[in-house]
């Protein structure tokens, strides 16, 4: 191994942490300008440091690992604070810090009028810190630290407007649903400790690779499935996706950064990182593919009937994450990661654009109160349009390349997955353009006076839209190729044309329903009847969870814990103490009659008893 340069990778983590600490402790007394400088500066420095490290590392044929200190040492198990960069994490690093910087810049404009400016940016920087730990971690425990940390920051930022009940509820929901996934993840980590005696990724994957097939089946499948449980929670896959749409209660830059571009792709990242384990567990691979496909379809269907512009994009995020899982599940890890990258570009763009619309309309999020904004906020319109075209998968925009890579791989794996995926892609095009048409075309139906966002907000939009146009030509898959077994990528022109045709069909359907025949949508909805109601009701998943889990838990708490434990044991115990004390007090009160002579009698009796005892014992000696 060639002598590795010392790159001080810890500085990548240190900058955002420092920013979070400064803004979190003394931010209240700093001016807005200073707070934003610290927040943007720390993330930008970390981006520059990543760029510097990558330029030093060149081709990254072998992972670059920096070991700092032993964190936990227990018997044979040694866990160090080790950071590493390989080809996979280098991509994630660039996306996280790059898109993160743009969103920080945008957030300065977006949050300008909000209370708690300093609090927002200290949370956002803290999020960057944990996300970078997650990406840079060389062992699974450190990764888990980042994993939980981003969950915490997600909770804090969803509940940023904590005075509103719905924001607090959404934050709790996100946190609790994520706990379910994290439980699976931690079990996977424990299984690794038991079976491999190490959590260092290099060692675990080497051991997994060497494990003979007859031994590996059960263990590796279990580990892989538990990791999938964790990934389902973090990446909002069926059945744990319910928190992500609610997470839109947070400020829009948060939705863009955490709930679209970076944190929710952590599940994809972990699965791709653990590819050695998954490749030995074909059952888990199939589970990933099916979960991804189901999620993509379900979320896309729900997305067609949402009226909140952010909710539409939230469901589209869930759906796109489903596509990534499909890619991973059919063995096209590099295609999945490629989609993470392009999705980060165009989904951050869509969310920031939606934020710009909301900003222009002074907080209006309902599509039915928009319309005709094309000429009023042109920059937002054009950038959002580019984002929509990119997510729809129209050549040559970014979404086309990554989505087709996934769909082609799915076709090679099993053709039915391709067809479901293609239809879903058409559906994606339909609902995204539905939102665009409802927002920007037709006549204006709202009351607020729209105004274009300031430059600090539309500059990130412009940069992201450039990336959404050209991002498809980044050589992500070629760069990742050595990490994964060669995956045959048949460049079947027919399949590509079919998927593009579906995308255009989706766009045209939206055009037909919402522009050529405005107002006809309600008629179609009515003719669909129960199907439409199911879709508009989000398939009643929230209600089902309420009935199956939340309600029994509440009832159980009420009858067992409150009526049983609390009232009988706790209150009964307290009441018994009170009764005994009161009774004893009533008895002792008789002694304290306030009558001097009775006191004198007591003293006399005491003295007599004392002397009597002394006398019978033979006096003092």
């Amino acid at each position: 191994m060639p002598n590795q340069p010392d790159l001080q990778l810890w500085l990548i983590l240190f900058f955002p942490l420092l920013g979070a600490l400064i803004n979190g402790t003394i931010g209240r007394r700093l001016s807005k300008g200073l707070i934003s400088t610290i927040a943007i500066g720390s993330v930008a420095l970390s981006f520059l440091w990543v760029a510097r490290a990558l330029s030093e590392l060149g081709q990254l044929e072998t992972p670059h690992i920096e070991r700092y200190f032993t964190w936990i040492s227990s018997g044979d198990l040694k866990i160090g604070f080790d950071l590493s960069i390989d080809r996979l994490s280098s991509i994630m690093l660039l996306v996280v810090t790059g898109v993160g910087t743009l969103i920080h810049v945008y957030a300065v404009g977006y949050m300008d009028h909000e209370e708690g400016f300093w609090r927002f940016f200290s949370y956002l920087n803290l999020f960057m810190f944990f996300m970078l730990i997650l990406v840079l971690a060389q062992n699974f425990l450190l990764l888990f630290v980042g994993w939980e940390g981003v969950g915490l920051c997600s909770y804090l930022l969803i509940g940023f407007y904590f005075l509103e009940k719905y924001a607090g509820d959404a934050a709790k929901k996100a946190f609790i649903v994520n706990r379910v996934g994290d439980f699976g993840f931690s079990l996977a980590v424990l299984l690794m400790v038991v079976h491999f005696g190490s959590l260092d990724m290099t060692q675990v994957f080497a051991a997994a690779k060497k494990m003979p097939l007859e031994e590996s089946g059960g263990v590796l499948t279990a580990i892989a499935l538990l990791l999938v449980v964790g990934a389902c929670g973090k990446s909002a896959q069926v059945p744990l996706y319910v928190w992500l749409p609610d997470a839109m209660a947070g400020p829009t830059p948060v939705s863009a950064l955490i709930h679209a571009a970076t944190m929710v792709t952590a599940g994809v990242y972990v699965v791709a990182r653990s590819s050695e384990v998954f490749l030995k567990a074909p059952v888990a691979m199939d589970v990933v593919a099916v979960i991804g496909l189901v999620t993509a379809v379900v979320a896309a269907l729900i997305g067609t009937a949402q009226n909140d512009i952010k909710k539409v994009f939230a469901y589209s995020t869930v759906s796109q994450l489903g596509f990534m899982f499909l890619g991973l599940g059919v063995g096209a890890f590099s295609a999945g990661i490629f989609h993470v990258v392009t999705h980060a570009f165009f989904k951050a763009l869509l969310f920031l654009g939606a934020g710009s619309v909301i900003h222009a309309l002074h907080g209006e999020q309902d599509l039915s109160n928009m319309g005709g904004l094309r000429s009023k906020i042109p920059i937002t319109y054009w950038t959002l349009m580019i984002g929509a075209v990119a997510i729809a998968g129209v050549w040559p925009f970014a979404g086309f390349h990554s989505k087709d890579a996934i769909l082609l791989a799915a076709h090679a794996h099993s053709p039915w997955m391709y067809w479901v995926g293609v239809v879903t892609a058409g559906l994606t095009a339909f609902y995204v353009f539905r939102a665009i048409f409802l927002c920007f075309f037709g006549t204006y139906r709202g009351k607020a006076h729209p105004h274009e966002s300031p430059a600090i907000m539309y500059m990130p939009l412009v940069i992201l839209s450039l990336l959404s146009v050209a991002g498809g030509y980044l050589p992500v898959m070629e760069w990742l190729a050595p990490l994964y077994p060669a995956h045959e990528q048949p460049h079947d022109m027919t399949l590509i044309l079919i998927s593009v045709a579906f995308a255009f069909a989706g766009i045209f359907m939206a055009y037909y329903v919402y522009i050529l025949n405005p107002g006809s949508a309600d008629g179609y909805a009515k003719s669909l009847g129960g199907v439409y109601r199911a879709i508009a009701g989000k398939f009643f998943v929230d209600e089902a969870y309420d009935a199956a889990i939340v309600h029994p838990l509440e009832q159980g708490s009420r009858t067992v814990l409150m009526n049983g434990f609390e009232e009988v044991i706790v209150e009964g115990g307290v009441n018994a103490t009170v009764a005994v004390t009161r009774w004893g007090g009533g008895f002792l009160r008789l002694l304290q009659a306030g009558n001097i002579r009775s006191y004198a009698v007591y003293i006399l009796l005491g003295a007599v008893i004392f002397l009597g005892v002394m006398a019978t014992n033979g006096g003092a000696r």
Partner: protein
Amino acid sequence: MPQLNAVPMSWYLILSAILFSLGVAGFLFRRNIITVFMSIELMLNAVNLSFVAFSQHLRQVDGQIFTFFVMVVAAAEAAVGLAIILTVFKNRQTLSIDEVSSLKN
């Protein structure tokens, strides 16, 4: 030194006990504050008597020193106590301890 008309130790103690019992009885059964007060003095002096008797019997001076302390305290107590009694009488025109009960309840 020959003990001529030595009074036996037990006589002193019996006298002391009688005086003490009289004090206790007076303290318990009389209502007049001044009588109660005098009973307390009687008890103190009964104890003084036994202190002195023991001092003589054991040929040690401690008991006599202790008696002086008791007398000093009794004098101080008498000064304070009589002042209180005077004030009580001025305010209430009564010396019955059963009627001085405003701190009760």
